[in-house]
């Protein structure tokens, strides 16, 4: 790995140059923390009875979990200077695939395996065309964006599939490991989907920052030629990030369907933009070579807070759009590498 360090300083978490960068990173993350805290405080002032409550925090984290899981995978994809525009469509296709497997009869396990398996398959198609077929990620995943949405609509003749039977049709207290449990069940007062999201975040952090694979990912995005010379398996690294993305899309599909109690062919519309947005405001460079899981996590929280706050304040759509855009722009300005507090 010393070779990588000398060839691509951007990729190495150690060394003098990297230390400065690491410091810059920390600063950016603090800046986003300020945005998150600020949004929470504003919410608490404007809606003192309903916003700063544990119930609402739980609600926001649950809502954040679907896009959050996508954003973790997207961080790896973008770190290799790639992009995945297909995640929203693949999410819908995965849910529908799992759905038809268990309609009219089946178990939660079959649904989960079906959804995750199908998303992984579509992710693998992306991976093959990008890493070995040398198709530009933007185009390959744009094609998949269309293909997967088409498949989602084809699977059940454009109709949603109800999944309530997987929970015995009951509400309130779903059985452990039933599908609804993944959406609304709790352990120690914390929703299962939040555990899944936090678990994947922790896993993603370890993978990116504490393993050789994580260094490969950043090295490939930083300078592909240099990484290749340094002995990084470039193609295999690129291949695996899109497969990983597929697996995570499948998990996100399960979390969404669990909460919705059904699989819908029109779900996941434009989720890719939320996921990419969260990654980018979190400080990961669209040019690749620089990635931050903590930043992505904070980016996801920022979006969840904005959405929750604005719906709770019952702002009109047009005002919401202006405010959301302004907050995102402000957050990005505040945490760009050049910004020093």
């Amino acid at each position: 790995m010393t070779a990588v360090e000398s060839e691509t300083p951007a990729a190495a978490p150690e060394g003098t140059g990297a230390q400065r960068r690491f410091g810059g990173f920390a600063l950016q993350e603090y800046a986003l923390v300020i945005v998150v805290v600020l949004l929470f405080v504003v919410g608490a002032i404007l809606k003192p009875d309903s916003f700063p409550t544990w119930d609402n925090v739980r609600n926001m984290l649950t809502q954040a979990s679907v896009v959050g899981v996508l954003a973790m995978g997207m961080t790896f994809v973008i770190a290799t200077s790639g992009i995945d525009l297909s995640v929203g469509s693949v999410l819908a296709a995965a849910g529908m695939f799992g759905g038809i497997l268990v309609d009219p009869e089946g178990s939660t396990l079959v649904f989960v395996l079906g959804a995750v398996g199908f998303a992984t398959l579509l992710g693998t198609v992306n991976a093959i065309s990008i890493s070995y077929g040398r198709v530009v990620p933007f185009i390959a995943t744009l094609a998949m964006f269309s293909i997967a949405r088409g498949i989602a609509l084809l699977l059940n003749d454009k109709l949603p599939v109800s999944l309530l039977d997987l929970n015995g049709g009951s509400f309130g207290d779903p059985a452990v490991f039933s599908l609804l449990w993944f959406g609304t069940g709790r352990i120690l007062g914390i929703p299962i989907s939040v555990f899944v999201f936090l678990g994947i975040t922790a896993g993603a952090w370890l993978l990116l920052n504490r393993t050789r694979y994580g260094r490969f990912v950043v090295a490939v995005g930083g300078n592909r030629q240099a990484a290749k010379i340094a002995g990084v398996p470039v193609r295999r690294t690129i291949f695996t990030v899109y497969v990983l993305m597929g697996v995570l899309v499948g998990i996100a599909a399960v979390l969404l369907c669990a909460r919705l109690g059904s699989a819908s062919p029109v779900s996941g519309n434009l989720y890719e933009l939320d996921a990419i947005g969260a990654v980018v405001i979190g400080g990961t460079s669209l040019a690749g070579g620089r990635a931050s899981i903590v930043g992505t996590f904070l980016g996801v929280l920022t979006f969840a807070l904005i959405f929750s706050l604005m719906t709770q304040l019952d702002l009109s759509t047009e005002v919401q759009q202006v405010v959301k855009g302004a907050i995102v722009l402000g957050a990005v300005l505040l945490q760009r590498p050049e910004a020093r507090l």
Partner: protein
Amino acid sequence: MSLQRLLIAMVAAVLLALGAAACGGDDDDDGGADAGETTTKESGTPASGGDKGPVTIVASVPPTDHGWLGAISKNAEEAADQYDDVDFRLLEAADSDSQAQQIEQVISDKPDALVVLPQDGEALTPVAQKAENAGIPVINVDRLFSAPDAATATILGDNYQIGVSAADYIGEELNCEGKVVEIQGLAGISVTEERSKGFTEELKKVCPDGGVEIVARQPGDFNPDTGLKVMENILQAQDQIDAVYTHDDDMAQGVVQAIRNAGREDEMFLTGVGGSEDAMAQIEEGGLYRATFLYNPSMAASAVNMARLIALGEGFEELVPPEVPRQVVVPAATVTKENVGDYQEYAFN
């Protein structure tokens, strides 16, 4: 190198084919609607294959990727299938541009009648006029053309009346006392604005002293997962909700799920719009889903029937003399537990 690429392309194709085969792919005609291209759909039965059929009807609709639009094309096809003397073709177009091009082509085929649900009424008016000028009668469905000479006959639902019916129902059920949430459709389109305007204005008439307060009004984009998320947040903000007026039965399923997940289904009731099978089943069951207001995609079946009558030179028997009216407005009937039995056969899914 090129051999390698060929190999990869083949592997990718096989994987995709596996995926498609695993879908049970019984239906292979309409998935490409997103691809930015136009797709063609033939009505399947050999009975309508032409040798018996003296009239040709072509229908042109937007991509059917939403429950209601899907039902529109199904209803049109089923209506056409009933007749041996109708040769029917359904065309889906991804956007206004390709729909206009499609209709241009159809004009040169000289069908006996053309049924059009335009993506955008304004944008497709010129090409509809062109069809009319070429002697092809145009039946305009749901979204209006902007000129009267663009269609021979028009059939449409009444979005404003939907809002009015909803306000009448909710006002009465609440005895003009309570907190109401409105989950709207897609912001900025006339369907949503009319459904909202009718509701607000009629609510003032039904409950002139106020009493019914609209505590939240947010768009759910006609989409169940957006409906779910928006309702989750509104439930956080409001500790008392008495009724929810949603703009669409499909989207309402997400709203219903949010309310159930929060365990608050006994606190409020909900209404939908459209008349889907799911909604009607839940209305019959009783409980949270109390009513829906018909915006029935069976209007597409009526449109095909009207097109056939016009093409054959016939008319509605009940009219004197029998003719096809210039405009038919489908009433926005209120479907509740009491009368759901009368409407279930017209439910769409």
